[in-house]
């Protein structure tokens, strides 16, 4: 990890202060061998720049896409990701775990 979760909350504050549109994603629940613990954060700006991690890379792309939508729409969302299978056209976790991620806009 390049950044601790606390660094990420500081980054979220300074990005917002700089006038950037910001969303914060937080792992709120995990089952099985989830790569990042509950409470892990990912901060995303309106251009898709991000810092932190909610899954060690497996589903970050999907979370960033949803985060940009949350920035535009305003309402928070709860996302759920599970193991990738042949029918999974969306992002999955190769480790076999499942995670739930709360995404909110920083107002």
């Amino acid at each position, binding site marked *: 990890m390049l950044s601790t979760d*606390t660094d990420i*909350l*500081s980054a*979220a*504050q300074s990005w*917002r*202060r700089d006038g950037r549109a910001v969303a*914060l994603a*937080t792992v*709120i*629940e995990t089952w099985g061998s989830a790569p990042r613990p*509950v*409470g892990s954060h990912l901060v995303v700006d309106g251009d898709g720049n991000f810092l932190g991690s909610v899954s060690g890379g497996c589903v970050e792309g999907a979370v960033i896409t949803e985060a940009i939508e949350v920035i535009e729409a305003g*309402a*928070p969302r*709860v996302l759920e990701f599970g193991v990738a299978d042949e029918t999974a056209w969306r992002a999955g976790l190769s480790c076999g775990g499942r995670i739930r991620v*709360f995404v*909110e*806009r*920083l*107002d």
Partner: protein
Amino acid sequence: MRSDILAALNDERAARRAAILVTDIADGAQRLVREAEIAADPLAAVLAKHLASGKSGLVEADGRTLFLTVQVPPVRLVVVGAVHISQAMAPMATGLDLALTVIDPRTAFATQERFPGVALVAEWPDAAFGTTVPVLDRYCALAALTHDPKIDDPALKAALAAECFYVGALGSRKTHASRVARLTEAGFSPAQIGRIHAPIGLPIGAVSPAEIALSVLAEIVACLRRVPRPEVA
């Protein structure tokens, strides 16, 4: 999340104070509960439990699903005395995520050779706190291990004044009785002095320095994770 709530959360962290962010995941409604506010909160019991464990997580309350973002300052362990027990303690403390500092004004003891990779301060404890060692606070544990009142006593006084969550002192019951007399003389109350764990460590029949180190660390973990957190007089 409101920017002011995030700023307040970050401020609490910078000040090394615990706080819990309560988020209703259905609508995103949030409030920040600072450590000092937990006892009066409607969710006091569950918040205290999460604070003690240091773990974030989901809880159900009044038919709502809430996420608790638990923010607890990193725990620091200050050991006074660069002695055998401290040498054995260093790798164990790392494994327990305790940020260790060893203080000993005796330069023959406090050598990097004896404590490779450990934050080591060859100064008197009262001179070190607030200068070469960060000021003690409630998220610090202090273990005084030198057997020498000239070195241990100033550290114990600083730890009691700072309300460290754990204060332990090596020495027999007899040694401790004279320590109690000195601290009483110095103006510390029986309640304050009663917070000192002495004889130090859980009673596991420890013999070797490593076993004593283990018993002290186990006692520190017990104090850290106890629910509710011990109140200070």
